[in-house]
């Protein structure tokens, strides 16, 4: 369908309005109501976190009032209550979410970059490399995530020459590296599948026929055409890194960024001790925040998948 044909007066009068693929994808995204709500909720959250010096009411280690100040239930000078040493939970949540979002974003981006390269090469090349990579990822992904994560964490932390590069076990950088090591596998699998499906298509054959190099085909045709699944993988990587960080921190293996700095996982982990004593706010609010973040990003990913896959039928 060439442009002249579409723009010719005869066609323009009778034809339905021309909608660009991008516009169609946007329309499909917007029709996913939960995702639209999620975008707003997440945006508010990110703004709050980005403006943390303004939105947080207290410093990360500051207590709300002179003692006795520990385990105060929600009240005017501490909206979400205080923790064991009288720090404001609301402010700490903001600081904690900041660390968690940084971990989620960075490890997702690194995972997606590695995953795209490995997946594209494996799918395009095939052969021995493909076999080995897919075998290894299958094996890794089959094991209980937490076990692999803990074992790898201790192992990487014990290799002393790696420490200057990836940081100490309890640093945020180390956690990001750790999640990137795991995160790329799922992405590589998705990209490989996409590449395998695409590489038999006519336009790739055409590109090959006019003498395009493999590198050119991968970079100009395969990856841009896989952008939908890659975006989806990115959102799910963010969620799994955030949840992974919380899980590690929950069991006391998370980042300890020093000076009372906190993360969502540390806050959820503290909830464990607060449960039996009935300090419900310490358990409820961090958990709700974590679920809200996971749920909104998941909804956005789900809507992106619907939006970027034109073949998807609307079945609910």
């Amino acid at each position, binding site marked *: 369908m060439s442009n002249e044909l579409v723009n010719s007066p005869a066609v323009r009068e009778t034809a339905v309005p021309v909608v660009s693929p991008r516009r169609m994808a946007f329309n499909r995204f917007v029709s996913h109501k*939960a995702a639209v709500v999620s975008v707003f909720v997440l945006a508010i959250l990110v703004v709050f976190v980005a403006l943390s010096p303004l939105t947080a009411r207290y410093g990360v280690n500051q207590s709300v009032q002179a003692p006795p100040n520990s385990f105060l239930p929600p009240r005017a000078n501490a909206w979400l209550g205080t923790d064991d040493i009288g720090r404001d939970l609301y402010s700490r949540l903001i600081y904690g979410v900041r660390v968690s979002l940084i971990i989620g974003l960075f490890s997702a981006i690194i995972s997606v970059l590695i995953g795209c390269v490995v997946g594209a090469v494996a799918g395009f090349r095939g052969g021995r490399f493909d076999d080995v990579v897919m075998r290894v990822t299958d*094996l890794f*992904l*089959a*094991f*209980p*995530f*937490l*076990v692999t994560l*803990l*074992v*790898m*964490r*201790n*192992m990487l*932390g*014990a*290799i002393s020459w790696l420490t200057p590069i990836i940081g100490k076990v309890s640093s945020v950088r180390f956690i990001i590296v750790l999640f990137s090591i795991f995160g790329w596998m799922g992405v590589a699998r998705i990209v490989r599948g996409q590449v395998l499906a695409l590489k038999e298509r006519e336009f790739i054959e055409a590109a090959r026929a006019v003498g395009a190099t493999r590198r050119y085909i991968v970079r100009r045709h395969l990856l841009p055409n896989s952008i939908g699944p890659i975006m989806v993988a990115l959102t799910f990587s963010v*969620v799994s890194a955030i*949840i992974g960080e*919380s*899980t590690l921190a*929950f*069991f006391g293996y998370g980042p300890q960024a020093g000076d009372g700095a906190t993360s969502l996982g540390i806050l*959820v982990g503290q*909830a*464990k001790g607060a*449960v*039996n*004593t*009935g300090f*419900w706010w310490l*358990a*409820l609010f961090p*958990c709700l925040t*974590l*679920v809200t973040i*996971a*749920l909104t990003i*998941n*909804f956005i990913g*789900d809507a992106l998948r619907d939006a970027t896959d034109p073949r998807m039928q*609307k*079945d*609910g």
Partner: protein
Amino acid sequence: MLRFVIRRLAWAVPTLFLVTFLVYIALRIGTNPVESYKRINPRATPAKIQQYIDKNGLDPNYVRGYFRWLVNFVTLDWPRSIKGSREVWPQLKDALANTLRLGAAASVVGIFFGLMLGVYAALRPGGRRDVGVNTAAFVGISIPPYVSAILLQLLFAVYWSRWFGSTLFPTSGVYPPGHTGFNLLLMLKHMVLPVTVVAIQIIAVYARYMRSSLLDVLSSEYMRTARSKGISERRVLFKHGLRNALIPVVTIAALDVGSIVGGLIITENIFSYPGMGKYFLSSFGEGDFPLLMPWMVIIVASVLLFNLLADVSYAWLDPRIRLE
């Protein structure tokens, strides 16, 4: 069929050795077994330490050490735990039994309700109940198990008795402290909350699988053929629809065992349930190599076994798959 199974088994055995070798190396680097022995037994004589190193195959050369460990493991000459110098197998056996009970109960409950909900949603695609099930399942997979566990614990450990004056479900252990002997009712009561936590995850995952799988099948040609032959709607659904929709679900079920074990580890920890998860976390925290290695072997072997089951069940259920 038999040849296929044997060939897959022939693959699984070297994989088992390879993976346990990797685990062996990772644990030796990560937990430093010799150091943790010295830390927990500060007054051990050099002879005792040497005996410990020999028995666990902690040779400085990893390959030699691994084979040393392997020989001891296979001949059931298992070293004793670092902490308290106790036999490993009795502890491991109890943990395994507790976890199998919990995991099996959660899987049965979870898969049953998950499949039901999936079918329920798929029968009216786009309808209100479909959207409801879909959204609920989505929320279910977005909630990490420890969040639901903590919230349930908060509700039942503290607030239930405060509101209603009596505890409904206990929130820790298998039996109340000090209880001896077997009591089925008491045990079941203790299992309700952990099973719920694990089952929520399973239900959510399976409802989604089942729904999309059944939707695929329902729109296929052979369903129309079956209907046009005049078979009753019920029979079409059960005989043609469900049967075919279950094929991918069964495969995924077998592959999913890793994530169920992961959920169990977290849940057991929160509810102080003495299973494999608690066993792992406490021995990992202590760096107790003699306790960790058999645990790892069991996990690796079961993951490989369920992978094998997935392949076999897929081939067995779907006659179109050729086992060349």
